[in-house]
């Protein structure tokens, strides 16, 4: 790597100067210079401007600095322990665990909140982290296993969370803001809370400093030096989680600081742990402070609350995208051995027939079995005809999107040779969703055509960005995946920003994001189905490429394949399918991840039967998810995308545990 243009110290000084200037300007806005000192140490009760400076502005600055430093420190620790430059508090499920816990408690046990929001948040974050650890336990808490499990747990908990916010928008008003991380303060209590707990955590960390530094060597080396790796990882992660939990419970979800500041510091040449531990917290603190100050100036004219946490995430995501090709990633390859469960079903044709039969059965159930006021019932033939126009389009749309996502997932997993690749994970769904979100928020009239167009454009643009950024390393699977995670995070941030407004309009946004077939009418369903079938037919001839690509670039090349061309063609097909499906069921579902997995587990290793099997499974799950969503909470309806991610996420977590 070339020598970086800046040292971490220079960058921090630069940022600190900017922050100082902004703080000065902000103070100047609020108070005449001669009163600054009074406001600082002894504000007069009857002077509200001094009070605001003393009890709002100053604690807000402190909380920004403390929170940013804590997240930077937590990120550094996590990255050191997991040996993964992309580990961070938010990617390990801590934030979403805390978030879900708060939602659940405020709905069903609000009394607990009085005992302390922070304890509920800590409990939730801790439980989520334990779940992540449990899932990765079998593999000795190996770095990649933990990050994977964290990602899946995060997505899963967010899905549950969205479902609850969809049903109780009025009661969860605070969560809409908390999700987007607001640093606004109402006194010094938040600062004291953070100072005390972060101080304790930092002290505990000092004890671990020496063994942690040994992790700069490889695992074997560290073990030879007498370090119990499992205990060390556990203790360090526990400290990092505790710090994250404290910050998150005070100010909500702050994206990316924990990920970006250690990564930037590393990029600027801080290689040794002691170096990183010095600069990453400082950079994190300054980054968060700078963002927060900028937003304080910006939120006036915009007539809306601009929460800082979502903003750092939105600003951080492009930064991460830029960083990824520049990071040196240890072992730049897919997590090993995943593609290895290659047992083959003795009669793939019979298996496919069985799956088709199951799908037919599922469709029959979805069309006929329903709930009414009197309870469950099979309708009479007359009732069936009556219900047909309401159920058929939804079943068809669910099947179509399931098929498209499953095919897209199969293609991706085979191209990248990575079993956790999927349109959802790669950010293609998120790209499509950003396109649609843009149309919805920025144009007064969002027609269906415009949404489809911009959704597809979003998916294609995301794909182009992915390819451009990763072109130099020949679309290496791992980096593709990481770029995808960054794009998903960008969408997540934008969505949080949009939802923080919590007006009647955001409610509809939430409904769409959750992925419902509710809005599909007959025509749309037919179009979706037709597109799905056409794309299936278009994909099948490429099955030889898909058989060769997972063998690795060299082998595929040796067997006469133009690797780059075939990858780009297949990826374009995949983007189309993803955009189509995302428009119908939103960006959340796990189908693209799960269906190809299940088909492979069932013993369909060759590309052709893999595609068909995954397609059938995708359709089956989606149809059942849609049906469940329609009948379980009757007359309310749970979006199919949510149900699918609940089922799929659970299944996937179970699968992870066994890997």
């Amino acid at each position, binding site marked *: 790597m070339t020598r970086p243009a800046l040292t971490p110290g220079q960058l921090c000084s630069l940022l600190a100067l900017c922050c100082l200037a902004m703080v000065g300007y902000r103070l100047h806005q609020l108070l005449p210079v001669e009163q600054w000192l009074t406001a600082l140490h002894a504000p007069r009760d009857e002077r509200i401007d001094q009070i*605001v400076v003393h009890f709002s502005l100053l604690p807000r600055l402190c909380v920004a600095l403390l929170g940013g430093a804590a997240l930077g420190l937590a990120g550094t620790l996590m990255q050191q322990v997991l040996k993964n430059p992309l580990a961070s508090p938010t990617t390990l499920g801590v934030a979403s665990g805390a978030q879900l816990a708060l939602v659940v408690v405020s709905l069903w046990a609000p009394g607990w909140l009085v005992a302390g929001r922070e304890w509920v948040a800590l409990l939730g974050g801790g439980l989520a982290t334990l779940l992540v650890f449990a899932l990765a336990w079998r593999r000795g808490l190996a770095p990649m296993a933990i990050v994977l499990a964290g990602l899946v747990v995060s997505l899963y908990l967010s899905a549950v969370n969205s479902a609850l916010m969809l049903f109780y928008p009025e009661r969860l008003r*605070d969560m809409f803001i908390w999700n987007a991380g*607001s640093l606004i303060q*109402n006194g010094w209590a938040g600062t004291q809370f953070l100072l005390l707990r972060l101080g304790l955590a930092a002290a505990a960390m000092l004890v671990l400093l020496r063994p942690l530094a040994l992790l700069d060597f490889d695992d074997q080396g560290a073990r030879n030096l007498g370090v119990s790796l499992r205990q060390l990882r556990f203790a360090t992660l526990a400290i990092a989680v505790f710090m994250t939990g404290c910050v998150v419970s005070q100010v909500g979800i702050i994206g990316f600081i924990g990920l970006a500041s250690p990564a930037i510091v590393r990029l600027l040449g801080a290689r040794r742990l002691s170096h990183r531990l010095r600069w990453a917290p400082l950079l994190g603190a300054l980054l968060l402070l700078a963002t927060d100050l900028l937003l304080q100036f910006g939120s006036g004219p915009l007539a809306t609350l601009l929460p800082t946490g979502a903003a750092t995430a939105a600003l951080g995501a492009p930064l991460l995208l830029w960083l990824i090709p520049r990071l040196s990633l240890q072992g730049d390859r897919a997590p090993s051995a995943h593609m290895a469960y290659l047992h083959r079903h003795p009669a793939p044709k019979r298996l496919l027939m069985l799956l088709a039969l199951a799908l037919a059965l599922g469709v029959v159930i979805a069309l006929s079995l329903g709930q009414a006021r009197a309870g469950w019932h099979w309708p009479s033939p007359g009732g069936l005809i009556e219900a047909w126009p309401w159920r058929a389009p939804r079943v068809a749309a669910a099947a179509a999107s399931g098929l498209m996502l499953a095919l897209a997932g199969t293609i991706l997993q085979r191209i990248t040779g990575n079993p956790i690749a999927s349109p959802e994970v790669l950010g293609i769904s998120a790209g499509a969703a950003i396109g649609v979100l843009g149309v919805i928020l920025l144009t007064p009239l969002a027609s269906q055509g415009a949404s489809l167009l911009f959704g597809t454009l979003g998916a294609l643009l995301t794909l182009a960005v992915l390819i451009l950024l990763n072109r130099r390393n020949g679309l290496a699977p791992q980096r593709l995946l990481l770029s995808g995670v960054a794009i998903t995070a960008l969408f997540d941030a934008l969505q949080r920003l949009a939802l923080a407004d919590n007006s009647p309009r955001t409610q*509809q946004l939430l409904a769409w994001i959750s992925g419902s077939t509710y*809005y599909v009418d007959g025509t749309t369903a037919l179009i979706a189905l037709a597109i799905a079938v056409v794309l299936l037919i278009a994909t099948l001839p490429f099955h030889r490429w898909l058989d060769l690509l997972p063998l690795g670039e060299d082998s595929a090349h040796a067997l006469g394949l133009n690797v780059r061309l075939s990858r780009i063609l297949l990826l374009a097909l995949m983007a189309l399918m993803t955009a189509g499906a995302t428009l119908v069921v939103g960006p959340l579902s796990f189908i693209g991840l799960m269906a190809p997995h299940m088909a492979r587990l069932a013993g369909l290793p060759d590309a052709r039967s893999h595609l068909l099997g995954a397609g059938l499974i995708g359709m089956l799950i989606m149809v059942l998810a849609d049906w469940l969503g329609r009948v379980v909470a009757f007359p309310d309806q749970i979006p199919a995308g949510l149900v699918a991610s609940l089922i799929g996420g659970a299944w996937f977590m179970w699968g992870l545990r066994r890997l």
Partner: protein
Amino acid sequence: MTSASPRPAATRRPTAESAFHPLSSRHRSWRLPLVLLLVLCSLALTPVQADDTQPTPALISLDWSMTETLLAIGVTPLGVAAPESYARWVGAPAIPAGVHDIGLRDQPNLELLARLDPDGIVTVSFLAGDSRLSRIAPVHAFDIYTSSRDPWQRALKVTRQLGRLTHHEQGAERLITRVRQQLAGARRKTRSDQPPVAVLQFIDNRHVRIYGEGSLFQAVFDQIGLTNAWQGDVNNWGFRQLGIDELARLPADTRLLVIRPLPTTVNGQLEDNILWQHLPAVRRGRVHELAPVWSFGGLASMARFAGEVAQALPATEGATP
């Protein structure tokens, strides 16, 4: 006559929200027949002046302000959206037993709607864009909260339109008269030199919603002669989310009206909220908690709020330092 037809102005110029959902196909085709139908209906109704003896149509209400207004003019709908949450957030008038729950406001259960076979569906225009609703029954979209920001006038109009639609013109007029009386009563009780008031709801102990131009609360203030202390920008729904530090920008003599329910984390915790305690209004004891009012409600909610305000303000007048 036709100017007062139930055909709302809002459907003619679709707002951003009417076509909000990417998949809610906006078929204009249903509108023309619907307009004709409604015009015919209103023409047919004119000769029979205010005849409450005609059978009441079985209506579905997808919006709480419509549900509230229907109940207040004496019409029990066949089905309503989200009745449980209505009971919590709107409260009165209560929904009688036997009214069908037809699902969420944004996503009513269409299959159930079709099975109930209503005579009409009453909703707000940003939820009325779904062509499938009009296949089930004629859709009547009424808006109280629009970009014209005159909820009082619109609430009067919507109440009358609902009265005509349900053959309860007299019920509608009775409601309007009652509400006018209540507002006049509130106006008499309120001193004319009353300092400005601000209406807010706590989101959590650091954030509030403050209501301004275009909100229910502003409409009531206009009617009873109060000045809203918050003159800043608000969103299309007449509110803005703020950090409580920004409440310091309100005029020093402002009275704060806090709409209950308070979130659990705020209720009983305000003593520890240092910034809140230092706000001029709080220090002078000029804070009043009011009973819950649905902030996007109709006439009945407005009257209830007016009553609450009138009761709260003079009662503490003597205590003002």
